[in-house]
């Protein structure tokens, strides 16, 4: 690859120059918005817009205000509860289903896989009207369990496919020999194949966990009272109108979400690529 841009010695300098210029420019474009958002969290006074100025008074007061003057603490707990339940239930369901589709040959398997593939393309959030009517009938408006249920269900088709793709890459010889030793269905699954799928399970768990943090449309529509909001809807109320000058509160709230999630992200980052390509391209 080093040869890709290095055709002649004379152009080597220009290649290097433009390469570093590009990398630096891109870095600035990426860091600038993140830095001005993050720095606003520590600025005193009422701010109505982010900017890159360092002559402000620095303070931690915004974090105190966030938990005493706003409902942020409750939003955070709501979101954590929804995220944990969604993660645990979804990971269990897709692991079981993905394993079965990968390891067993049963009547209806191929049709089921095609069905999952088709269903996966339906933009589930778009069936908003139906969710509304169902919620009316079930008395589930403003209830977080209904939202969890939709998050869990909405991710199943796509993620089952990815799980199946990953299980396909785990060699079959191990479970074959375990079967010969007399291991039952559950033992082969739990003790032999499952431990080898840990990287993919971790990735799926992170994605399922992150969905409720970022999902806005359904949460905004189904959760009606402010104390039931998730962080995404709650934070949006701080910034949707700059005249209210709650931008510093937004930044403080955003930091408390972005830092833990980014750390989880970088911890699991290595598993992403293998999981994606394995699951995406293999049938």
């Amino acid at each position, binding site marked *: 690859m080093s040869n890709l841009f290095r055709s002649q010695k004379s152009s080597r300098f220009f290649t290097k120059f433009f390469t570093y210029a590009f990398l630096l420019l891109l870095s600035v474009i990426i860091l600038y918005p*993140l830095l001005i958002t993050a720095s606003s969290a520590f600025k005193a006074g009422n701010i109505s817009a982010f900017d890159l100025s360092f002559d402000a008074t620095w303070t931690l007061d915004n974090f105190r205000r966030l938990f005493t003057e706003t409902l942020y603490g409750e939003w955070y707990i709501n979101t954590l509860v929804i995220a944990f339940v969604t993660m645990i239930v979804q990971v269990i369901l897709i692991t079981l289903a993905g394993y079965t589709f990968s390891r067993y040959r049963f009547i209806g398997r191929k049709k089921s896989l095609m069905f999952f593939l088709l269903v996966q393309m339906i933009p589930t959030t778009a069936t*908003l009207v139906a969710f509304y009517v169902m919620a009316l009938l079930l008395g589930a408006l403003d209830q977080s369990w209904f939202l969890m249920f939709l998050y869990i269900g*909405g991710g199943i088709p796509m993620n089952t496919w990815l799980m199946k793709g990953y299980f396909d890459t785990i060699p079959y010889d191990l479970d074959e020999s375990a079967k010969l030793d007399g291991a039952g269905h559950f033992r082969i699954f739990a003790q032999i194949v499952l431990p080898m799928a840990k990287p993919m399970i971790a990735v799926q768990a992170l994605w399922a966990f992150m969905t409720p943090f970022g999902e806005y449309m359904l949460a*905004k529509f189904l959760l009606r009272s402010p104390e039931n909001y998730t962080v995404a809807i709650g934070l949006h109320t701080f910034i949707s109108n700059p005249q209210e000058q709650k931008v510093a509160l937004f930044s403080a709230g955003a930091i408390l979400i972005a830092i833990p999630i980014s750390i989880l992200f970088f911890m699991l980052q290595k598993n992403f690529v293998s999981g994606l390509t394995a699951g995406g391209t293999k049938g």
Partner: protein
Amino acid sequence: MERTKDAKKRVRTATWLSVIPGIGQFYNKQTFKGIAFLVVFALFIYEMIVFGFAAFTGMVTLGLTPGEDHSLFLLIEGSLQLLLTVIFFLFYAINIYDARKVAIQIVEEKKINKTAKDILKNVYHNGFPYLFTIPAYLVMIFAIIFPVLVTIFISFTNYDFYHIPPASLIDWVGFENFINMFFLSSYRDTFIAVLGWTIIWTLGATSLQIAIGIFTAVVLNQKFIKFKRLFGIIFLLPWAVPAFITIMSFSNMFNDSLGAINSQVIPFINSLVPFIDLGALPWKTNPFFTKIAIILVQGWLGFPYIYVLVSGILQSIPEEQYESAKIDGAGPIQRFRHITLPTILMIAAPVFITQYTFNLNNFNMIYLFNEGGPGSIGAGAGSTDILISWIFKLTTGTSPQYSIAAAVTLFISIFVITIALIVFKKTKAFEMED
């Protein structure tokens, strides 16, 4: 000769008897299974008498007296009954298939499981895959399939803010919503405008993020680069930080009067580059500039995913391929076009496709940036609304148009599935292994 005739008769009798589930199984001397099937059948008949028929008639009429009949609940009950009936007919087909299969086995003098214990054991062994997939299926049916079914039905009604049950009734109106959407009234103009921008947005934003992603991966893959890991981490940040946060930040930054872009970035560019003197741009108040901003921000948000994917692929291309191409006299651009790009596309095409479908329904980017604005283009849509955010507004606005929203939903689903099927067929990316 005599025997085969007898055998055929036996198989036929078993099949015909199972028109009433269970009887065919009794005939095959599988008493336990027969009782189980008969019980399921009886339960379904009971359910039909107590609830089912009423549910179906309720669905047909959608209620007769306003204030008393709740059309929506009738619609939901009818849809549930329909789902249940479909599941029953699946069971019914399995029942006939089973009676026939077992009868054939008897004729061929194979061992038949007759006792309850044998049958349960057999169910456990062969049913294991079903046991493991049924939970996923159940959740999926109620979270996806059932809502889609209800959406289909609602799109054929007149459910809107004039018809809110239980105060008033909802009626079936046939294809009226679709006719309005495609041919008549103010909806058509809005629909075409929104659809047009949805397509431009999807193609523009996704292609931009793919282009930046591939370019960054190729540039960073050169050997001489120092601090490669540091750059790698920086380039991952837009993916690592939750998108809803950065979209809201950008929304603030692009504010016309207060935002950092107009007050800091543009003056900085003016001071840096000679002969350029840009004024403040109307990012949030002029549809054209809002569209530009949205596409650029999505490029920022979406490129890391492609960059990570492509970096992985680049490392798997053997060096020799480039060496031999170089000996053949291929320049860097030719090598990229004939070696690098085809390899990337071959491996990553399915992921690229999912990126296009993702952006087609990227509600957060459109809504959190400028709430679909600025301004309005009629029928509740703003000038940068895409189909999904229009649906949101049709459903949540002060004068909701539920049935039109349902019709638009159906349109997107059919549109996406059709395109995806064509593409999958062409790329053969999802071919099954057996």
